């Protein structure tokens, strides 16, 4: 009951905001005090090492998975998040699922990542990938990935495409539609 109240309050408090996300980049950290600490507890963040995360990369259920690698400190990532959120909403009934994989530093989950999720009312599923052996897992996501973010993997069953780039909504939608055909 308490949880529902919080959700309602949250929906109410962010619904009037314009759709541009607060730019929580390197220069403008969100102050933890801006978000009530007991709200942070409502964010259940799943944290994975790469081995456990891999299950998200090889599903074969005819769903189009849009997996975006981002972090709150990455300004171009934050800038494109609304487009992924829009895909999440507009393609929910078309078998498209968005997964936002945060690469934030673990010691900042509570002070940066969770407040960001609350403040921007992120509706797509957010998980955190915490695995320092980056040279081992980056090539497993794509051999073409140099490691810069934002980066996005779109796949459906055995068919996948990787993008080490920023998206606008039109370009993102264009790529997703290709997978729906």
């Amino acid at each position: 009951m308490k949880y529902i109240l919080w959700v309602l309050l949250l929906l109410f408090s962010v619904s009037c905001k314009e759709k541009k996300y607060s730019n929580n980049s390197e220069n403008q950290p969100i102050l933890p005090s801006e978000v009530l600490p007991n709200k942070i507890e409502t964010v259940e963040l799943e944290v994975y090492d790469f081995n456990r995360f891999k299950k998200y990369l090889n599903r074969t259920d005819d769903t189009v998975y849009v997996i975006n690698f981002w972090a709150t400190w990455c300004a171009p990532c934050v800038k494109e998040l609304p487009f992924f959120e829009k895909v999440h909403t507009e393609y929910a009934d078309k078998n498209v699922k968005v997964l936002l994989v945060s690469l934030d530093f673990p010691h900042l989950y509570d002070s940066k990542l969770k407040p960001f999720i609350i403040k921007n009312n992120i509706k797509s599923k957010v998980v955190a990938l915490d695995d320092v052996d980056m040279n081992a897992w980056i090539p497993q996501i794509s051999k073409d990935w140099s490691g810069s973010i934002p980066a996005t993997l779109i796949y459906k069953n055995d068919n996948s495409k990787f993008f080490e780039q920023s998206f606008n909504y039109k370009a993102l939608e264009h790529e997703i539609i290709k997978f729906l055909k």
Partner: protein
Amino acid sequence: MKTPVLLSIMMLTFMSDFTLNNVKERSGYQIGDVVADFELKNIDGNMVSLSDYKDVKGFIITFTCNTCPFSIAYEDRIMALNEKYASKGYPVIAINPNNPKVQPGDSYKSMQQRALEKGFTFPYLVDEGQQVYPKFGATKTPHMFVLQNTKQGPVVKYIGAIDDNYKDANAVNTKYVENAVNALLSGHPVKLQETKAIGCTIKV
């Protein structure tokens, strides 16, 4: 008669381009390439070139910046690399590739401040006009390049990350850059020539 053939060839080329555009090789210098010299402004106002360094065996070049959390996490380790290897002939040169108009925290003044605060013992150069980083094919900060001087000029011997644990210098298993430089110092080939790591996109 020739036109349809030509047209279909063009079409085919276009189509293959289209399907292949996703598979992109990292552009810029590859392992074994000779690096062209550059001249960039240091935070002390002086211009710095590779050819200014006499009697060095090579360089540890890092594309880094003030603002990226990964760069900040590695600052002390970059300083330690210079402490350890400058005297052995492999000095560190740091280059900031970000356009300060896009990333104000990487302005010349901010670079001077950061270098002063941290006590950088190596040049911290401005890639003015963002001309040099594309030649190296740096894609992010931090991005390391180990060069070895040869008769042909400085040759790229290692590209990638500093080590395999950005979070904790004490928990590192493999020191990629140190291993590469140690191999070069002892006349051995570099075993692991390229590594991948998450970093911040270069802001242009």
